[in-house]
């Protein structure tokens, strides 16, 4: 018995030594021993081999349904005008008239959306073109070969028994360091030294957490990094976005105060750094939120605010409507694009399917998280555009940089009803085609309702 305890103690000490000296300390100083880099390269080679093998296997077994990353139907991107013109081409009467066949255009569009619609596609994980040897992404991939299955089994062992405990340890160290560090620094009086120390604590903690997820982050265009007194906006895929961005700079976070562990973290963070936490009741009051954020931005010495204007997590294949509230505050906007590489792990948080804890567990048992972060040049609102147009301009820039689809749909309505104004737009378009100027002009309807309750997140 004694011997067993001795052995266990030695193993534990060795473990802690590895973790602390080989991972935590280098992480705190922003250095890397290069182990993760080698790991990623091995993984890439492995996945490429697996892809080739699977494709070969699929050719031999024709009955298997093929994965479809872009949805199950092919939509022709033709405008309504072109379609209507086509429908009339062969007819003797002039084009600007109602024709019985017009209804086919709407019918086809309607059925296409029943079979596969653009919005719900964005709220389930991206379907990969080829299996990446994780059980959770195994959709319709059937048994191909023994070697593949062995590699998969080995992968399960490595991920769950070796990487997972390592990552959990790192996460615990990181978070407790955050709480302890910020509490200690919080006792100091306000001074430049305190700010510097607080930034140090935050940075090191986030770096440890990033290691805890085996995250490899590539930052591009660092010269455009958000400055103090500005607002940083980014597309939202997962709560981990915060960790990813905070690895390279300090931000003031905005959000609701939660209870439990999150609440503890939030309360300790705000001791050293002016984060903007709201009570639940305050969130409903748009003016209170705007004025607090405005005050924060006006004090040019405060850290840049980090906001995710989509308001909800999207699956990283597209960018949905940006809520205009963040763009009304004023100040300079620093757009950032975050793109995850889906081969190494699915970063999307499907909040209706998984709660936070099971999501984090899934993250910690993926291969790794590989992320590209692009800092875009700062933007300000022009005189002739309103907040909604400015929001769209920023959204397009972000989507363009990351190769994401730029959608106008509102992610927040994934469980609610669509505004009638969108239907009216379709009707307007159709009437202008067949009636032209003879139609009556209804008074201008504002597409984005001004009494929108949740204008921020």
């Amino acid at each position, binding site marked *: 018995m004694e011997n067993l305890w001795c052995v266990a103690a030695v193993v534990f000490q060795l473990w802690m030594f590895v973790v602390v000296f080989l991972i935590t300390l280098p992480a705190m100083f922003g250095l890397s021993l290069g182990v993760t880099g080698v790991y990623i390269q091995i993984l890439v080679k492995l996945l490429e081999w697996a892809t080739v093998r699977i494709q070969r296997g699929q050719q031999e077994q024709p*009955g*298997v*349904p*093929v994965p*479809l990353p*872009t*949805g*199950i*139907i*092919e939509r*022709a991107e033709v405008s309504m005008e072109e379609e209507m013109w*086509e*429908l009339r081409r*062969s007819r003797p009467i002039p084009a600007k008239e*109602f*024709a*019985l*066949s*017009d*209804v*086919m*255009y*709407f*019918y*086809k*569009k*309607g*059925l296409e*959306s*029943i*079979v596969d*619609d*653009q*919005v*719900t596609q964005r709220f*389930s*994980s991206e*379907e990969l073109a080829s299996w990446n040897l994780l059980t959770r992404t*195994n*959709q*319709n991939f059937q048994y191909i070969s023994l070697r593949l299955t062995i590699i998969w089994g080995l992968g399960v062992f490595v991920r769950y028994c070796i990487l997972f405990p390592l990552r959990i340890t790192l996460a615990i160290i990181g978070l407790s360091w955050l709480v302890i560090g910020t509490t200690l620094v919080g006792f100091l009086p306000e001074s430049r030294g305190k700010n510097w120390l607080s930034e140090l604590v935050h940075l090191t903690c986030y770096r440890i957490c990033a290691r805890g997820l085996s995250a490899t982050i590539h930052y591009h265009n660092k010269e455009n990094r958000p400055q103090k007194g500005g607002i940083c906006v980014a597309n939202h895929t997962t709560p981990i976005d915060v960790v990813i961005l905070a690895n390279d700079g300090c931000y003031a976070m905005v959000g609701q105060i939660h209870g439990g562990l999150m609440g503890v973290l939030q309360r300790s963070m705000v001791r050293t750094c002016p984060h903007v936490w709201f009570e639940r009741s305050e969130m409903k009051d748009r003016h209170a939120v705007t004025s607090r954020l405005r005050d924060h931005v006006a004090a040019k010495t405060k850290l840049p605010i980090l906001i995710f204007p989509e308001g909800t997590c999207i699956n990283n294949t597209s960018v949905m409507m940006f809520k205009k509230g963040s763009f009304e505050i004023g100040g300079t906007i620093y757009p950032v694009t975050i793109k995850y590489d889906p081969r190494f792990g699915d970063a999307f948080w*499907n909040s209706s399917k998984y709660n936070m804890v099971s999501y984090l567990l899934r993250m910690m048992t993926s291969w790794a998280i590989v992320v590209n972060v692009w800092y875009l040049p700062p933007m300000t609102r022009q005189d002739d555009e309103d907040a909604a147009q400015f929001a769209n301009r920023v959204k397009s820039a972000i989507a363009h940089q990351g190769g994401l689809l730029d959608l106008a*749909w509102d992610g927040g309505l*994934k469980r609610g009803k*669509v505004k009638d104004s*969108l*239907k*009216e*737009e*379709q*009707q*307007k378009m*159709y*009437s202008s085609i*067949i*009636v032209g100027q*003879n*139609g*009556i002009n*209804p008074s201008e309807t504002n597409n984005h309702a001004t009494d929108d309750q949740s204008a921020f997140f």
Partner: protein
Amino acid sequence: MGSSSSNLNTIPNSQELMQETGFSAAHLLRLYERFEFLDKDNKGHLRPEDFEAVQELSTNPIGDIIIGSFFSPGQETVDFPSFVRILAHFRPAEKNRTRDGAQPEPANSSTGKLKFAFQLYDRDRDGKISREELLQVLRAMLEMQVTEEQLESMAERAIQEADLDEDDAISFDEFKKSLEKVNIDHKMSIHFMK
């Protein structure tokens, strides 16, 4: 799509459905996953509310009419076989299909598609599109954009043009004649990915 892999055995009567509608096994599986996704409470059938949850459909001017076409008159639910049968109308027609006279007209032939489009107008299924039925569809597509008089004159023109036997309604044959130059197969087909 994001759901766990199911295979054909979970779909009842899959072989007959494939025969009848012409969907391949892979497509049927995809459609079943979609059906299950739309059926949020796992009832096994769909109701109008389940269709209305699709955002893109609510912005379609004739969205409600399309939803209505899935439900036979008097019925309030649609099960998977009916769902698939209706979608089968929108499969691209097969070229060079030889069939003997005993087989029923396939749903996705030009005539099948035309019949289906006809039913969109002819809601009470009496075999004729009356002026009122035409007005209903026009109203849905244009609503606030035109006046009532303009709607009526449009309907009048359409009926005058298509109504050959002068009974003030459009029968199926008249409908077919009026659309003979339109490439039905192209306009009313959804291209499923291979």
